């Protein structure tokens, strides 16, 4: 088990969060329009970006799996997608809270990022049912990889489509990330780094746990237990 790597990552993540949270609450200025509520931006948006990258990574690992036929890549693809699903739930909940705080509604269709997210989550929610519906392990991994590739390509396409479809009459509820003043920009970058590190650490953790279980199963089978 790559314990040193997991430990290093965990330490880095904790350090990043120790920098990130004070920056958000003590360094970043209060935004003029939205007020204190805008602070959710430093939580929701990095979470969303990391989640989407996680889904695309799942697709890339799936490509590696189909090319090399090494089940390690399938494991990594699965963990990346699984972790992104969990983070994605967080994105939707924090996005909903932000929408209610800013706009008074728990859900807004005029925020294209949130809407695209919902569609992407609906798609990836079928990933595990798909896997469980196939019994043969090799075929399960292969089909899951095909799905991960198609879904990974879908993520940017979907964002484009929803972005095009959102009406330009309504201002974006949750604001965009462009034209940030410098302190906000730095805080945003740090928050993005912290979220990415957290994602990587939890994925490593999950991979280690899975490998241990697989090893345990094979060892117990060799020893005659079932």
């Amino acid at each position: 088990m790559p314990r040193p790597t997991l430990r290093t990552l965990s330490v880095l993540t904790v350090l990043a969060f120790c920098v990130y949270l004070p920056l958000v609450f003590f360094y970043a200025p209060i935004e003029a329009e939205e007020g204190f509520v805008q602070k959710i931006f430093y939580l929701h948006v990095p979470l969303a970006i990391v989640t989407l990258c996680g889904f695309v990574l799942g697709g890339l690992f799936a490509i590696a799996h189909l090319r090399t036929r090494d089940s390690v890549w399938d494991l990594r693809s699965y963990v990346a997608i699984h972790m992104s699903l969990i983070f994605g739930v967080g994105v939707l909940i924090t996005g909903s809270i932000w929408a209610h705080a800013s706009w008074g509604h728990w859900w807004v269709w005029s925020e294209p990022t949130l809407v695209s997210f919902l569609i992407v989550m609906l798609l990836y929610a079928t990933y595990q049912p798909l896997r469980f519906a196939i019994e043969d392990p090799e075929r399960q991994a292969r089909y899951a990889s095909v799905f991960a590739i198609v879904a990974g390509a879908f993520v940017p396409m979907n964002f484009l489509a929803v972005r095009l479809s959102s009406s330009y009459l309504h201002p974006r509820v949750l604001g965009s990330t462009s034209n940030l003043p410098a302190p906000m920009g730095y805080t945003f970058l740090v928050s993005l780094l912290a979220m990415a590190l957290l994602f990587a650490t939890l994925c490593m953790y999950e991979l280690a746990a899975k490998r241990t279980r697989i090893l345990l199963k094979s060892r117990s089978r060799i020893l005659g237990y079932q």
Partner: protein
Amino acid sequence: MSPSHQIVDEGEPHVILPGAAHVPTGTASASSALVPVKTSRTIAAILRKELLVELRTLESVPGMSLFAVSTFVVFHFALNRTTVSGDLAAGVLWVTLLFAAMLGVNRLFVADAEQGGFDGLLLAPVDRTALLIAKALTLGAYLVMLELVAVPAFALLLSPPLGTGLGGLVAVLALADIGLAAIGTLIAALAVQTRARDLLGPLLALPLLVPVVIGAARASSPLLAATAAGASAHAAWPATRWLLLLGLYDLVFGLIAYAVFDFLLED
């Protein structure tokens, strides 16, 4: 029908696919070596078989069309309207077409899975992607036939103001059909070999097809818009951006389907 496969080394290799008559394929070669069959001939052969089977069994297209017409009736009662126009008309039309397409998707590979068609294809000296292309063309053909029934039914039952927008609507239908066919075929092949295939197919396909719905519905909406004067003084051609979106979607997912389909067929 049990899968049967023979390669007869008598000049012209014969490949028998389940459910079809003898389909002579490939080049006439005097040598006894197996000559790989040209992809275009494979596609033509499979396509012909599919359409013949559909013609004889009438499994998919009548069901899809009937479903579409019934759905329009349901919409009449659900919306409590005698006419629809604009966004509402586009929405009703595209939701109905989408769900009717799902019916076709569910049935697309069932015969191959249950009767050994996949095995037959794997054993034949043909490019496996030919199956994807042939099945996608088949699904596209089913969709066209569906629309030939559904769109007039829609015009009849829910009286959207169509008029000059018909040409534009046809263009939107064509582009959307390509996307539906590409993704529908891929997802059908993916779902057919799983346990809950009838459920998993639409569940997988619906989110993937959201960009198609966005493009198609937004493109159709001005074509079906009513005007105050009652005359069809609305747009005659859909906005370019939606056509570009649909075209981009078709291109990207057509290529991806082409690239990954092989991996679904191995065994």
